[in-house]
């Protein structure tokens, strides 16, 4: 079953009859616990094959249930998409936000308000499962709070809306706090405190345009020789999430979401592990 999708709202709004919750930056996951236990990606892949740690969720959930959720990699109090992509997180969490089936009954034809009731009645935050909270009406205020904490955005849902599998419906809208962009990593540098930075740039007809620097993500192995001078590298692709760009085109509040390996800093699988498989899905 494919999950229901949202359209991007032109701007954040507050509205009676709507439910607003944090949009978590991860992979969409449909959790099904019946006779057997499975967690499917947005395109129907088995997420437990990529994240075996999720098997533990079976013990954290009540039986006979189907949930809609976002899988996030959690560290230091917040989700980190790059850890999810690298499968290098210490902790994975299933942020559940909708209940599609419960105790012998499909709930997709019931309004969201009713499904949320069932979700909160049956599921509690426990182990690798967390019930995503939300608020009524005050979407703009939640969006401001989410921006302040540099989270990905807000999901706005009409409380009387039905669950439409695989459909992108205006009854679900997302407010995005961060923009994302693929760019080239052209140089590496290490600050005095040891933190590595990537210099990123876009490539246009007119040549390279610098976009400033961004902290190198965890899970990336720095090259052997250090020094505070920029080391220029064979460019490799990275996707950055950022709040905005300065007038000179530099990124503000930027962080790496994911990247394609290059020769330098390519991942070294732990002994006994093969190279990483392809990521299960590109996120929404």
């Amino acid at each position, binding site marked *: 079953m494919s999950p229901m999708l949202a359209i991007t709202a032109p701007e954040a*709004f*507050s509205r009676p009859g709507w439910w607003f919750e*944090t949009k978590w930056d991860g992979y969409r996951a449909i959790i099904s616990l019946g006779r057997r236990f499975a967690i499917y990606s947005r395109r129907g892949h088995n997420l437990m094959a990529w994240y075996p740690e999720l098997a*533990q969720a079976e013990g954290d959930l009540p039986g006979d249930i189907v949930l809609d959720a976002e899988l996030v990699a*959690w560290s230091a*109090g*917040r989700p980190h998409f790059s850890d999810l992509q690298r499968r290098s997180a*210490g*902790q994975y*969490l299933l*942020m559940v936000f909708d209940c599609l089936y419960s105790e012998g009954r499909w709930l997709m034809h019931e309004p969201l308000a009713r499904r949320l009731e069932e979700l909160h009645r049956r599921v509690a*935050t*426990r*182990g*690798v*499962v*967390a019930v*995503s*909270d939300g*608020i009524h009406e*005050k979407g*703009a*205020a*939640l969006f*401001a*709070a*989410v921006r*302040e*904490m540099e989270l990905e955005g807000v999901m706005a849902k009409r409380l009387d809306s039905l669950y439409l599998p695989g459909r992108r419906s205006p009854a679900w809208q997302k407010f995005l706090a961060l923009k994302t962009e693929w760019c080239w990593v052209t140089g590496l*540098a290490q600050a*005095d405190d040891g933190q590595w930075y990537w210099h990123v740039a876009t490539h246009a007809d007119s040549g390279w345009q610098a976009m400033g620097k961004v902290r190198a993500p965890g899970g990336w192995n720095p090259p*052997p*020789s*250090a*020094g*505070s*001078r*920029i080391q220029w590298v064979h460019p490799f692709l990275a996707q950055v999430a950022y709040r905005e760009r300065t007038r000179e085109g530099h990124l503000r509040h930027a962080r790496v979401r994911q990247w394609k390996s290059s020769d330098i800093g390519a991942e070294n699988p732990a002994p006994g592990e093969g190279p990483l498989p392809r990521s299960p899905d590109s996120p929404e």
Partner: protein
Amino acid sequence: MRSLYKGIIGFGLVSIPIQVYKAMESERVTTHWIHDACHTRIQYQKYCPTCERAVESGEVVSGAPLPDGRFVVLPPPEKSPGGDHTITILNFPELREIDPVFYETAYWLKPGPGGQKAYALLAQVMREMGRVALAEMRLRSRPSLAVVRAFNDHTLMMHRMYYPESLRQDGAALGPADQTASEKELDMAKTLVDHMAEAFDPARYPNEHRLEKLRQIEALMPTAEAPRAAQPGQEVLDLMEKLRASVQAQAEHGTGTE
């Protein structure tokens, strides 16, 4: 082995590009403080007892205390202009003229691209003439004295030094100056020392304490436990609580809503 820095040895008009490597391995077996209950590595927080809260690194400045209890706040150290790690040779004393008390940390020096010839020449000349190079090194922003010497026929080593004024001079007078030994006592002591005189053989002195600790770790290996899954669920609840509080605060200040 990872180089710590790239740098340049300045020797008259010649400059030799080099890479600097730490020479000594830590003698301690690596251990971390972990929480006994869950095997998670503990973190340290900077805490302000006056404001009764944890403070971020951006809120912290460096303050030099005055005798009356006031603090002079120092500006943050200037970032050294990138890559300018220089080792400037001042003169060439003999090694035995420098008391070992001044030595702090040892580094291997490796010639950088294009530096092989000058590097080899410097090593050979110092070795043949029995001299070492006293230098002022500037790694990052902190300057210090250093000795560059030929460790063997081909390789240079650098010893970072304490500044001589750091030596606590009054310690030099701690030995008694008024004791006299008889001829006989002196002879006996000399015979004993002669008897025990031996060349230094590094291979004869393994670090037994370290080996013992490693053996202990190996014996305990079967009992090793991964850090217990922390409670990210609690962190999620905390985060959502913060968001809720922020929405509430905006409602009270009449902002953020339409």
